[in-house]
């Protein structure tokens, strides 16, 4: 919207793409379980690695993955980013952190919001746990988990993280 009598210097040209999005079999399994408050992964029959959310075939060996495994809602921060920039439609107050979290029992990371932790205190190796919405609000959505917060337990030592990352680098 331009101001009357001021020369036009820009025009709004919003683009809106509407998808009828199918999440596929693996993520459907994941989302149906998260409706019940459970987090599922799938185990590679060749390497034993557990992928969260479940995938139909192994990233490393391409073998079909049929075995489902329930993993914990607690895990370790492997890496993170701090959002310092205000952007369109942003609902959270900056600064805030998004982290790659490897849940206990899993070999791949999920990305989720970290709260109840000043961004200056974010670090790899930090133990975190899910904070769930009230059970009555659960749907087939990752938003059933509002965010992750620090558990206060001792960090996973940085050396171990590097070893784990090397081991898990294909997961």
């Amino acid at each position, binding site marked *: 919207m331009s101001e009357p009598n001021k020369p036009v210097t820009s025009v709004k040209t919003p683009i809106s793409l509407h998808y009828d999005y199918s999440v596929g079999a693996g993520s459907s399994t994941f989302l149906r379980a998260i409706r019940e408050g459970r987090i599922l992964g799938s185990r590679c029959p060749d390497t034993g690695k557990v992928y969260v959310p479940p995938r139909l075939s192994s990233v490393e060996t391409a073998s079909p993955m049929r075995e489902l495994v329930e993993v914990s809602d607690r895990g370790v921060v492997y890496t993170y980013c701090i959002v310092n920039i205000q952007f369109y439609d942003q609902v959270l107050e900056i600064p805030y952190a998004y982290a790659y979290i490897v849940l206990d029992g899993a070999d791949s990371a999920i990305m989720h919001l970290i709260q109840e932790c000043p961004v200056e205190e974010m670090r790899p190796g930090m133990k975190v746990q899910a904070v769930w919405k009230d059970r009555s609000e659960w749907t*087939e959505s990752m938003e059933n988990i509002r965010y992750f917060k620090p558990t206060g337990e001792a960090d996973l030592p940085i050396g171990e993280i590097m070893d784990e990352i090397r081991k898990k680098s294909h997961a």
Partner: protein
Amino acid sequence: MELNDQKEALRGEHVLQYPYRRATGPILGRFFTEIRDHKRLLGVKTAAGQILCPPVEADPDTLEDLSVEDLVEVGPAGHVTSWTWLNEPRPGNPLEHSFAWALIKLDGADSALLHAVDAGSESAMRTGMRVVARFCDERNGDIRDITCFVPED
């Protein structure tokens, strides 16, 4: 537990939006300002003497910057050089009923502008037909300030 891939996959509506705002440059800025404030259409005169509408910021032959001094009034009527009929408009289209997308060469211009022609029916459309711009009452300074073109009486 076994993964069951026979069960129907979940699906849902997903909307991806890009809230772009584009800088116009001085020439297109003046083009939109004139439409908004005076319902006047402008073309730009190139070094070769061609008048381009919609106007452009640089001369397509010499690649030199053009100036707002090179703007001249065109239209508001012109003729259709090419068109296609749209039976079912989509959200965001200029009209909610069937219309034609048309290339319109405004009187005084040597190039054509793409806009909607509200002709009522496909059978009323002709290449070469005369049309005239219809402007919105509330104008915001963009191409939607032209509601559409309509057949000239």
